[in-house]
């Protein structure tokens, strides 16, 4: 009896949580399928309308910006390149630097680690001017390299990889040494496969981090060709109010829904590794 009450209240709380998460998204989605006029005059909608294809087609393919040359699709591609680049390079660099710190007993390894760790205290926003200066001196403004490169060093990921490597038993390294694994092989054949759930987790975090960058691409890019989705959100908001036209509210919702899809996909795909790592204890 008691356990049923407990189960019921637990589910009740969980269902409320789910509703809080899902309802706004549902309203945004439902509203995005109506006519702009309907949404403005009647407010946000709970039910699905009949303008789904028109609105989404319009958002994805209508040319906008000052030059009237870019579309939301191109912004999605830019955002994907930026987020994917940041996440991939971050994971690789962090895994390798953690490997160096943990396994190579060079002098000052620990101070160097803490130096890396301290950079957590200096987020991009704080060092945005010097970062911009460097990128601009290297002529990397308005390029994918410029979008990705200054964001690829990660103290967080280095820290997590370091903690994981330190938990790997020494005997594993010794056995591998006897089996003729050099330091590169040990990294590729042992540490990377052992930390694949870790890599998946880091990749998700870093992808979302890269995807949601706003300030850096805003400063970095003057060429519309390199605009990203998050920047586009501001632009579509401006455009929908300025110019005396009727605000295209429904299309705005379509854009928001679309912008959520890539990070959701990344999470959905990599989640399998996550759960695998949780239920399979390989030690």
């Amino acid at each position, binding site marked *: 009896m008691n356990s049923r009450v407990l189960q019921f209240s637990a589910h009740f709380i969980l269902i409320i949580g789910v509703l809080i998460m899902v309802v706004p998204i549902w309203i945004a989605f439902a509203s995005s399928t109506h006519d702009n006029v309907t949404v403005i005059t009647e407010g946000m909608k709970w039910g699905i309308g009949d303008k789904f294809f028109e609105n989404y087609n319009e958002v994805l393919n209508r040319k906008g910006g000052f030059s009237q040359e870019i579309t939301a699709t191109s912004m999605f591609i830019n955002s994907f390149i930026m987020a994917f680049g940041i996440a991939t390079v971050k994971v690789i660099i962090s895994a390798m630097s953690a490997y160096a710190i943990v396994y190579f007993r060079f002098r000052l390894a620990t101070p160097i680690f803490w130096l890396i760790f301290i950079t957590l205290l200096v987020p991009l926003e704080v060092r945005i001017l010097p970062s911009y200066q460097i990128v601009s001196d290297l002529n990397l403004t308005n390029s994918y390299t410029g979008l990705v490169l200054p964001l690829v060093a990660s103290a967080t990921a280095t820290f997590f990889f370091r903690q994981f490597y330190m938990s790997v038993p020494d005997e594993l390294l010794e056995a591998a040494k006897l089996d003729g694994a050099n330091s590169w*092989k040990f990294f590729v054949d042992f540490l990377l496969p052992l930390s694949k759930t870790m890599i998946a987790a880091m990749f998700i975090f870093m992808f979302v981090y890269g995807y949601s960058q706003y300030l850096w691409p805003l400063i970095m890019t003057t060429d519309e060709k390199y605009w990203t989705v998050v920047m586009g959100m501001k632009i579509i908001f401006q455009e929908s109010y300025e110019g005396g036209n009727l605000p295209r509210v429904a299309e705005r919702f379509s854009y928001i829904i679309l912008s959520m899809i890539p990070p959701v996909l990344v999470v959905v795909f990599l989640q399998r590794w996550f759960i695998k790592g949780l239920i399979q204890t390989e030690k």
Partner: protein
Amino acid sequence: MSFLNLENVTKIYPNGTKAVNETSLSISEGELMVFVGPSGCGKSTLLRMIAGLEDITDGEIKLDNRVINKVDPSERDVAMVFQNYALYPHMNVFKNLSYGLKNKGESKEEIEKKVNEVAELLEIKEFLQRKPGQLSGGQRQRVAMGRAIVRNPKAFLFDEPLSNLDAKLRGQVRIEIKKLQKQMGVTSVFVTHDQVEAMTLGDRLAVINEGVIEQVGSPIEVYENPATYFVAEFIGTPQMNFVNGEIKSNQFVSKGFSCPLTSNMSDQEVIFGIRPENLKVNPNGNITIKVDLIEKLGADSIIYGYDKSNNYICYRENGNTKIQSGEEITLEIEEGIYHLFDKETKKRLN
């Protein structure tokens, strides 16, 4: 013929700790040498130096007439079985066994053939596709052995490989290892702190204490003629009884009892040692003890008591003893079976 040869091998850690001190030892081909000693005595360090996992501060290690001091661990032609097996958790058993061969650049067919042979030998064929996490302790132990065997090394190195197994399995695996080693005839070094393992497995033992080999010899030699006080104390359960006293006109005299000696000894202060099984009840014996505690193990009974000068004496009797706690019994020392150690140098005198 010496096959694995250690010459004045010394290990000093960067913080100044001397783990192994000028140790020399020669192991012949096909022999199973056991390093036994208390934890922290340097036995594992010595083994790891042979494996190449620790640098050698000084001295020389030769395997099959080749100095291997500076040779990379993978090229020393040795294979090691680790205490916790150190199986590769993300690889299945087949890959665990074949990883070393793959790194040596052997062909796929060759690898498959060798792995299958070893798997058959160790009866782990049906597990080849499983991961170590899905195996039991005993099976993992076999895989660890297999990984060593498959490389066909000149020497096996075992670093306390049985200490993670439960008591029953330990006995079985011990016998298996011994059989396998004899069957394959590969020179082996086995490190353990367990004296039963040491006595049963070894062709010879090296008893190590504080980085120094105290004695090398066959298990029975070491048991019957311990070269130092430490060896006498370390080998044998229950422990040997020790009584301080002196030799006076070829007779050992202590406060509690005296015992005539069978060999001629000069007068001096000594430690007198006697194993519990070399005592027997005899009303006309040398030592009278007041029984304090009795342990009945089934096959034998261990009886502890105090002699007249409060030395704690242990005596072993076969079967279920009738002696009661609190009783006084008199024990006779079996003629000639005693051990005398110098009080200062702790070396054996007789």
